[in-house]
């Protein structure tokens, strides 16, 4: 998966002494007996493009609404720029939100929609008009200023919603599924624009999305939520390459999971006995593990190579039969059945239009991967 950032962003979350822009401390939100958000703590820093990712019902929208001030946490505190805003009403918070439904005021023109927040602030008319023009230019809809929302297409409405939310130059912009209502082509194009706008303005973006690809593409960091809790908070690459739990590994992309137990460990490698594949796997892992401990080895399909012949010295080799092939154009996905019945997925890029010896159904293949390409999960 591609990352759109042209330069490596600074990593403010690595510096522990700096005060984060948003400090969420042990936030819990209970509806009746249901915990929508269950004891979440997060630090989000100035200039981040931070994604709250998870399936529907994981609590990401509730968390965003608590940041905006539309929901009051059952317990815990929220700090923005060092100030406790837990009990501050939405109209006094230094954040603005772009709603999933866009929530444009239907009785106002595009320009009036964008000027709405500025008017509430009491900004002078001349300055206001200037700011509106600036916002219209930013999202490239100068010609639509006098239209009403019902005269706009979905993509145009999305731009108005973005312009309206940015007009007040908030410290933080909250975006609830900002691309959810757009079709695929427009969504990909808008991803680039969102990132560009965020980098240009330097405003911190906090985005709620259920689309992992969207989160991977745009974010500086992602918090993966599951049943009201954070599973892992990391930059996209770390989240993908070093998932910390089975849930993260299987939510982001595809993964092969081998259940087993630790046989032995030296400095930076661990040997895992995996009964379902009837083999021992060698994995690079530096955290100490106890022999006998139940663990899971996670292996991404694209890390697997097809070997020509068995190499007696190399670890991590499996023999199996190709049972299914999915041709996706750029890559093909192969499902290989091991002698014990377990299936392993691997992908190959289709480098040549017509490969000389393409892999085919019921063909026996030898698969292998390096100890660096897989990981051990303890949860």
């Amino acid at each position, binding site marked *: 998966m591609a990352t759109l950032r042209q330069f490596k962003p600074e990593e403010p979350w690595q510096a522990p002494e700096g005060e984060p822009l948003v400090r969420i401390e042990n936030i819990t939100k209970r509806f009746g007996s249901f915990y929508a958000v269950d004891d979440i703590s997060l630090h989000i820093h100035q200039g981040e493009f931070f994604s709250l990712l998870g399936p529907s019902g994981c609590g990401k929208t509730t968390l965003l609404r608590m940041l905006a001030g539309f929901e009051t946490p059952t317990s815990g505190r929220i700090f923005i720029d060092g100030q406790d805003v837990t009990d501050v009403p939405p*109209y006094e918070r230094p954040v*603005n939100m772009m709603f999933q439904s866009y*929530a*444009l005021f*239907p009785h106002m023109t595009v320009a009036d929609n964008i000027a*709405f927040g500025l008017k509430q602030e009491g900004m002078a008319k001349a300055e206001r008009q200037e700011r509106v023009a600036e916002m219209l230019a930013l999202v490239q809809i100068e010609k639509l200023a006098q239209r009403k929302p019902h005269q706009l297409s979905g993509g145009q409405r999305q731009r108005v919603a973005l312009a309206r939310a940015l007009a007040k130059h908030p410290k933080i912009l909250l975006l609830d599924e900002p691309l959810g209502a757009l079709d695929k082509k427009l969504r990909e194009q808008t991803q680039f624009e969102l990132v560009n706008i965020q980098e240009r303005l330097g405003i911190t973006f906090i985005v709620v999305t259920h689309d992992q690809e969207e989160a991977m593409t745009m974010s500086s960091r992602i918090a993966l939520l599951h049943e009201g809790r954070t599973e892992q908070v990391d930059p996209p690459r770390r989240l993908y390459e070093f998932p910390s739990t089975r849930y993260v590994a299987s939510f982001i992309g595809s993964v092969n999971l081998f259940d087993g137990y630790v046989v032995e460990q030296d400095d930076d490698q661990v040997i895992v006995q995996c009964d379902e594949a009837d083999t021992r796997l060698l994995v690079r892992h530096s955290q100490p593990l106890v022999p006998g401990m139940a663990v899971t080895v996670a292996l991404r399909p694209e890390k697997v190579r097809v070997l020509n012949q068995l190499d007696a010295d190399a670890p991590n080799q499996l023999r199996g039969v190709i049972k299914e092939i999915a041709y996706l154009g750029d890559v093909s996905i192969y499902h290989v059945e091991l002698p014990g019945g377990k299936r392993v997925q691997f992908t190959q890029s289709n480098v040549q239009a017509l490969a000389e010896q393409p892999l085919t159904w019921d063909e026996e293949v030898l698969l292998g991967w390096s100890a660096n390409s897989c990981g051990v999960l303890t949860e």
Partner: protein
Amino acid sequence: MKLKQHLPPARNLIIAIPWFWLALFFLLPFLFVLKISLSEPVLAQPPYLDLIREIEDGLVTIMVNFGNYQLLLEDSLYLSALLGSLKVATISTLCCLLIGYPMAYAIARSPSHWRLPLLMLIILPFWTSFLIRIYAWIGILKGNGLLNNFLLWTGLIDTPLEIMHTPFAVYIGVVYNYLPFVVLPLYATLIRLDLTLLEAAADLGCRPWKQFLLITLPLSLPGVLAGAMLVFIPVMGEFVIPDLLGGPDTLMLGKLMWTEFFNNKDWPLASSLAALLLVALIVPFVLLRHFERRAEEGAA
């Protein structure tokens, strides 16, 4: 495709039914009224001369008499009755809106399991006959009625208040009776309002009171207009409430029409009053529609 164009589509048929209904039960009777309004009153049965009369064998004349309309314009009684009706209708409409809007708003914002019972309470009075409800108000408002007895008992007043047969009693009756016609369309508008819009306004720095002024109120104007028309139009011609609750000085078109028709047996004059009332109601609304349409075209 060709065949389909020749057959009358079902859509036209469906539209034709209400048109037919209006023509048969509204336009046609109104033409009768219009005809009578242009005829001369006589002491006979029916008490007017037909417009088209046979004078001699085969000789037919059409006599059109504008005298009734002339009388309406010349006698200030009728103009003051029109103004009286306008005043009662305007004030009652405003009162209904002022009382009905908060009611509709409260119902629309109440928990969903409360809405149906509350709406039922609004509709419930309709289950009793209109006349009985107005008579009940006489029982409440009259000199030794419920209200006065209660106020005397509490010691707030020493002598009974004179409410019956005053304009105030008419307003009470009219507002009470027409309130549901404001509450229901307003409720229908307010319940459809997307609450995310209020969140968006709050998010942009708008306090609750201003959220109402800038978002809820403008977006509920269609409901306000519908409710206002449902009160204003019937109250303009209202007869029963001013007759039962009002006094001799309550001058309204409906009452006057009744007097001309039944007491004075002057059908032509009563008919011309009816025609005048219709014009007084239709002209402003046609103009309003015209300007609305112009504004819409201007926006597009």
